[in-house]
């Protein structure tokens, strides 16, 4: 433990950066998603996405309102909505929002790149467009889609360039883990894309769970 502390102090350098300012950051990312559906159906797939953070940086603390968006395709997952069981391939789009608290440490593993940690609760909507499916009970049409409202949390760590001015567009590299559990599911008729109709909304009964590992790469935009 003492060794770890010594290593930490040895590689530490004081933080000189822009502070007490609002900043907007954004970037892109690759994700590894594990989706658990009904009846222990599960699939792991690689996806992609983007992230954005708008918030205030104090000296070492940052408070951001963050959004993560990721896409992917899960095969052979069982879904259930409006008394219909659907088994198929789901093309998924997840959009999450939440407050994210971030702490920039003095530890610099490389030049002026500082190690940081961040965490926060998150709320998300997952839209599932189902392809190549079979159904039992109820009605499910080709243009219907499922939407899941989930709650969860995000934990991430990474390194961020510390520069004097945000106009220099400091860059960050982040490793994120997110967990989401659905609490509401809606069956939506999307045949008219100018005005979608919600056909039913019910408790998801924790049908859908997501574990997401994501590598994000981005920069301070302004």
């Amino acid at each position: 433990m003492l060794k770890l502390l010594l290593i930490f102090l040895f590689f530490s350098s004081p933080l000189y950066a822009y502070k007490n300012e609002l900043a907007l950051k954004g970037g892109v990312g690759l994700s590894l998603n594990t989706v658990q559906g009904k009846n222990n159906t599960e699939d792991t797939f690689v996806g992609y996405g983007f992230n954005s953070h708008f918030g205030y940086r104090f000296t070492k603390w940052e408070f951001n309102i963050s959004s993560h968006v990721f896409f992917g395709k899960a095969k052979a997952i069982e879904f259930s909505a409006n008394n219909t069981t659907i088994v198929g391939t789901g093309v998924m789009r997840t959009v999450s929002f939440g407050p994210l608290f971030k702490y920039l440490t003095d530890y610099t593993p490389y030049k002026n790149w500082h190690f940081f940690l961040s965490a926060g609760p998150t709320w998300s909507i997952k839209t599932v467009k189902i392809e190549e499916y079979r159904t039992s009970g109820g009605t499910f049409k080709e243009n219907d889609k499922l939407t899941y409202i989930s709650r969860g949390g995000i934990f991430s760590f990474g390194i961020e360039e510390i520069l004097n001015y945000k106009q220099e567009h400091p860059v960050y590299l982040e490793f994120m883990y997110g967990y989401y559990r659905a609490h509401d599911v809606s069956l939506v008729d999307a045949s008219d894309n100018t005005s979608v109709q919600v056909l039913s909304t019910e408790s998801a009964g924790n049908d859908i769970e997501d574990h997401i590992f994501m590598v994000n790469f981005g920069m301070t935009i302004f």
Partner: protein
Amino acid sequence: MMKVVTVLIIFFMTNGAYASLSHHNYPLLADLPKKEVMDLTSKKRVPKTLYTYIDREHSFKESLQLVSAIYGLSWVLYPLTQPKTFKNQGSFRNYRDNFGELVFDRDEPFWNWIIHPLSGSQLFLFYRANGYSRTESLAMTFISSTLFEFTIEIYTEPASIQDLYQTPVFGSIIGIGIETLSLYLLNQGNPFSKFFGHLINPATLFWFFEGKVNITPTWDGNDRVGLLLMGEF
């Protein structure tokens, strides 16, 4: 009443583009067509107007007036741009029921990722044109779009979490792209580029755009030439 301030910046360039005119037997500045001036070194047109953004401080009263103007305009534009939705789904009963509600909407990506961010980008550019910095413009866009979500759009549907975030944030990101591209186009000096520069960034056309600087080439008759930059804000 707009205060007019003239900024005179004269760059004398003894070895610059215009100075080289007489040295190389190029036509004199006075011989060029009246409406067109070109840089003979780079063989590019010199635009008569330089488009840029000038950030400045704003009073609370001024910000309130601008937010109010956008708010009023939103009440006019919303039913005009979405008459079908306004007529079929809108009512004051909905307004009362939706007041204070905040939900995830189920709209298609076309609305959430194209229409709302594009609207946000134009709001962002409106505030940029009025002299707000990028961060301030994002904050003002957030205020305007939040007011729209919570007090106008609820006539037809509850306020949406996605729209609250994506309109100002994605709008500002797109806005910066449009800002950069439009400045490039506007400063090319040819009518074709200028047309598209104004088309993607219409706020540059209006009286409130503060980043318009007139350029007048100057020449002392000998070997000293320069540019006179004149702006109003």
